[in-house]
């Protein structure tokens, strides 16, 4: 058999023919290379600069190499970094594409309206941009109070903008990373163990004997350290249990794959709890010593038998029992993975509570091969004046709503910005830093209605994204490869500090976030909150307080510190006071009860698909993070568009051919902007379809991303809100197929 490279191309790359058509070979280094004779840049002649990756939240530390011509050449992991162990994922390696992308935002832009009412963006100077912003900020403050200015942020430079808002007097700050991602998980673990998981999750995967993935497609989401440790664990013979309606990559590496009916996960979790309690295979000593509420829980799950769950999940009762025993056999070296993007059905805090309870019964919290106790480096705060105290914050928008929300809820800010909001805490202006709200927050229409109700909107980003089209002022930020930011301090087994320094001058007229914020602050009379000439002074000052310096860190990139506090795992028979009301791990949650929620998770059935409709499941593909990567030249060369996974039975019922292009329509009538190619595959259940997140870009300035595949976010109009945290459940949307795009133009006119 001739191994056909073209087949790969279908799966993982565009192929040469397609690419020759699709790419504009205008990257800085390509023409230079084409002229020169073939020579490999030489590591010994290259310079390298410390950085940590900004392509996803994992923030792997590495080295950015520049060649003899001082052009950014490659990015390689830093071997001393516990988060990356010297190895990046494809997105991090392909981070050079963010720098080279010629579609980047190049200059500040301002929205202008001509006499005929037509709106366009015109290029303006930084001076003019800052003056306009300062003027508007003063106006908003005078008219409504500074609290009426909100910030939506993501990533490292978000910190500078949060500092700006703090100086200005607003705490209305939120990131989609909470209510559109891990919010319910954080609160569920907090009420159970007294501690949220934070990021990266302290999972001791390398030493685990049993890894249970329910709602995690590790290996397709390239959460680097976890993928690395999973691979190490596979080498040591770990047993993996994967629960997924799709035969994911990791399902293919699992001892058990449970092809569950989507939206029934909580039934399976409760049945597992039932088996583990009733067969008395939980960690008895641990549960007795550390937990609260076993007897109530036992009674609560009495009827949640495997047979009951089998009827709901379409799994066999035997498989449910066998997998429960598999976990118990490995206990305490077992991890029921908490997942990350957990905002699915609107009862997500309860589902994650079940995950937390299961881990508690298995004794995995604080144990080798389970959850380790992470530690984080601390840097003292750079001196600054006392900030004004805002009169209200996002918590006051709808008092009493979402009592468990631990940090800003984006959709609450959107509520307060919406014309239908009747409360006293209206939001009138938005700063949006590094997050494409159109793709990250579901119910796009509501976001746009809120946006259009604003008096002023500023978007700061490196790339034109859908959201930039709605701004009054657009500010081009330089990429993480061209700027200083605060050192990364994220938790791990050992506390550590990772440095970011620029490896090249910012391209075009883009500028670092810290500089943008400092300039704005100065113009609104708050320059003393940014009391430095260059942000490197702040970094150096902070580093010197902990016994290192910018100079030292430039050489090493990452510094590991000694653990100050507890041990990595609980000691034998250690007395532990958990940060819960009872001081114990709460199987029965007193916090949930006090807030009027079920103290123990109950199963509720979710909406099911009707004839001809399929549940839309979305996820990751290894080469992309989200809309921020879908125009990257290196990464679109790996995967340029998403496809829709359709079971062959479904395809034959509809008479579809592989690769055929279809439009999708959801159960509320929403039709996709673009068509998507279908991939007919046995790897997906017949009641669901799957696609990768982040594609189907609608901004024409994105020459590689525009019109490539569909945006799953666009298909998520039916949002189920999690009562505890306000998070937005997005997996309750069902789609059907259209072979032609319906003529929507008529309806709109």
């Amino acid at each position, binding site marked *: 058999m001739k191994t056909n*490279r073209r087949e790969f191309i279908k799966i*993982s790359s565009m192929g*040469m023919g397609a690419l020759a058509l*699709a790419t504009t070979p205008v990257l800085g280094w*390509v023409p230079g290379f084409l002229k020169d004779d073939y020579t490999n840049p*030489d590591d010994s002649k290259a310079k390298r600069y410390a950085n940590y990756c900004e392509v996803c939240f994992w923030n792997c530390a590495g080295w950015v190499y520049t060649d003899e011509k001082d052009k950014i050449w490659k990015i390689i*992991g830093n071997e001393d970094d516990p988060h990356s162990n010297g190895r990046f994922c494809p997105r991090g390696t392909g981070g050079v594409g963010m720098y080279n992308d010629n579609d980047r935002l190049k200059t500040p832009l301002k929205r202008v309206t001509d006499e005929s009412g037509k709106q366009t963006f015109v290029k303006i100077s930084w001076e003019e941009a800052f003056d306009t912003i300062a003027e508007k900020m003063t106006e908003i403050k005078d008219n409504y109070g500074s609290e009426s200015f909100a910030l939506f942020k993501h990533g490292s430079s978000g910190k500078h903008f949060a500092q700006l808002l703090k100086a200005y007097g607003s705490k209305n700050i939120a990131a989609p990373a909470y209510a559109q991602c891990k919010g319910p998980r954080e609160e569920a673990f907090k009420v159970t163990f007294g501690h949220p998981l934070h990021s990266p999750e302290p999972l001791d995967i390398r030493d685990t004997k049993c890894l249970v993935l329910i709602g995690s497609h590790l290996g397709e989401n390239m959460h680097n350290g976890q993928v690395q440790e999973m691979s*190490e664990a596979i080498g040591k013979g770990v047993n993996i249990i994967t629960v997924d309606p799709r035969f994911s990559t990791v399902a293919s590496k699992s001892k058990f794959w449970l092809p569950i009916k989507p939206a029934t996960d909580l039934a399976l979790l409760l049945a597992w709890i039932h088996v583990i309690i009733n067969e008395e295979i939980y960690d008895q000593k641990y549960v007795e010593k550390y937990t609260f509420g076993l007897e109530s829980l036992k009674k609560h799950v009495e009827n949640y038998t495997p047979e009951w769950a089998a009827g709901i999940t379409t799994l066999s009762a035997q498989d449910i029992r066998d997998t429960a025993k598999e976990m118990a056999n490995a206990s305490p070296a077992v991890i029921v993975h908490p997942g990350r993007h957990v905002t699915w059905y609107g009862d997500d805090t309860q589902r994650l509570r079940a995950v937390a309870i299961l881990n508690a019964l298995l004794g995995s919290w604080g144990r080798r091969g389970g959850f380790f106790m992470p530690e984080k480096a601390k840097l003292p705060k750079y001196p600054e004046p006392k900030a004004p105290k805002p009169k209200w914050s996002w918590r006051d928008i709808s008092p009493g709503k979402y009592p468990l929300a631990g940090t800003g809820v984006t959709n609450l800010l959107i509520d307060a910005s919406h014309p239908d909001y009747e409360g006293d805490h209206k939001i009138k202006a938005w700063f949006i830093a590094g997050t494409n709200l159109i793709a990250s927050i579901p119910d796009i229409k509501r976001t746009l209605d809120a946006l259009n109700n604003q008096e002023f909107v500023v978007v700061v980003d490196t790339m034109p994204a859908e959201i930039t089209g709605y701004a009054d002022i657009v500010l081009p930020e330089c990429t993480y490869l061209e700027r200083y930011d605060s050192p990364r301090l994220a938790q791990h087994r050992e506390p550590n500090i990772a440095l970011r320094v620029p490896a090249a001058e910012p391209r075009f007229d883009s500028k670092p976030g810290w500089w943008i914020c400092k300039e704005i602050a100065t113009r609104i009379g708050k320059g003393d909150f940014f009391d430095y000439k260059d942000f490197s002074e702040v970094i150096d000052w902070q580093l010197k307080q902990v016994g290192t310096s910018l100079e030292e860190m430039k050489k090493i990139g990452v510094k590991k510190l000694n653990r100050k506090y507890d041990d990595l795992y609980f000691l034998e028979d250690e007395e532990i006071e958990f940060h819960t009301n009872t001081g114990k791990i709460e199987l029965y949650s007193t916090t949930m009860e006090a807030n009027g929620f079920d103290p123990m998770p109950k199963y509720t059935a979710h909406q099911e698909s009707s004839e001809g409709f399929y549940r839309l499941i979305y996820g990751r593909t290894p080469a992309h993070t989200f809309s921020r990567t879908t125009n990257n030249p290196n990464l679109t060369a790996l995967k340029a568009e998403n496809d829709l996974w359709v079971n062959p039975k479904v395809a034959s019922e509809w008479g579809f051919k592989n690769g055929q292009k279809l439009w999708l329509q959801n159960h509320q009538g929403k039709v996709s902007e673009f068509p998507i190619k279908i991939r007919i595959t046995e790897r*997906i259940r017949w009641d669901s379809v799957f696609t990768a997140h982040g594609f189907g870009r609608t901004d024409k300035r994105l020459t590689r991303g525009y019109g490539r595949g569909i945006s799953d976010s666009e298909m998520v109009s039916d949002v189920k809100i999690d009562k505890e945290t306000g998070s937005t459940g997005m997996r309750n949307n069902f789609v059907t197929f259209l072979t032609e795009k319906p003529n929507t133009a008529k309806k709109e006119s």
Partner: protein
Amino acid sequence: MRYGMAIDTRKCVGCADCVVACQTENNIPIGYTRDWIAELNEGTYPNLHLEIRSERCNHCENTPCVRTCPTGASHIILGGIVKVTHEECIGCGACIQSCPYDARYMHPDGYVDKCTFCDHRVANGQEPACVSVCPTHCMYFGDLDDPNSEVSKVVAANKIKTLAPEAGTKPQIFYLV
């Protein structure tokens, strides 16, 4: 001395970091690639099997590509690494046709290009770029003639296969299955 690789399909997740790293390390123009991922899926839902692996030139012991090259541009260097001298290549594409693995491509500058096993790195004692970046550590590179090299040990200790053995090319890349 015979350089070779072992690639563990049980660990590979198909992330294609090897592909991007090869492209940046070797300045491969965007849209072309020396290595790639193959996914092979078998069975019907829910009884499925999936193999994922990273592929590139097999640096075969028996090389149809070198035999068919009319100018001698395709040649074998020390350690069995199959290379193309770009200046001598006339871009006729005979080698591309003869390779059973589709491992060669026509560079936009008019010559044939392919995996070099990163000999420029190997000469400096570094591992090939793709091997050195893989987040799953699924690739091993080294001297197959040395029974104590890691790659030899991995090949000896595991169930292995090569691609298209029937082509008789004697590949030097071994897949752990």
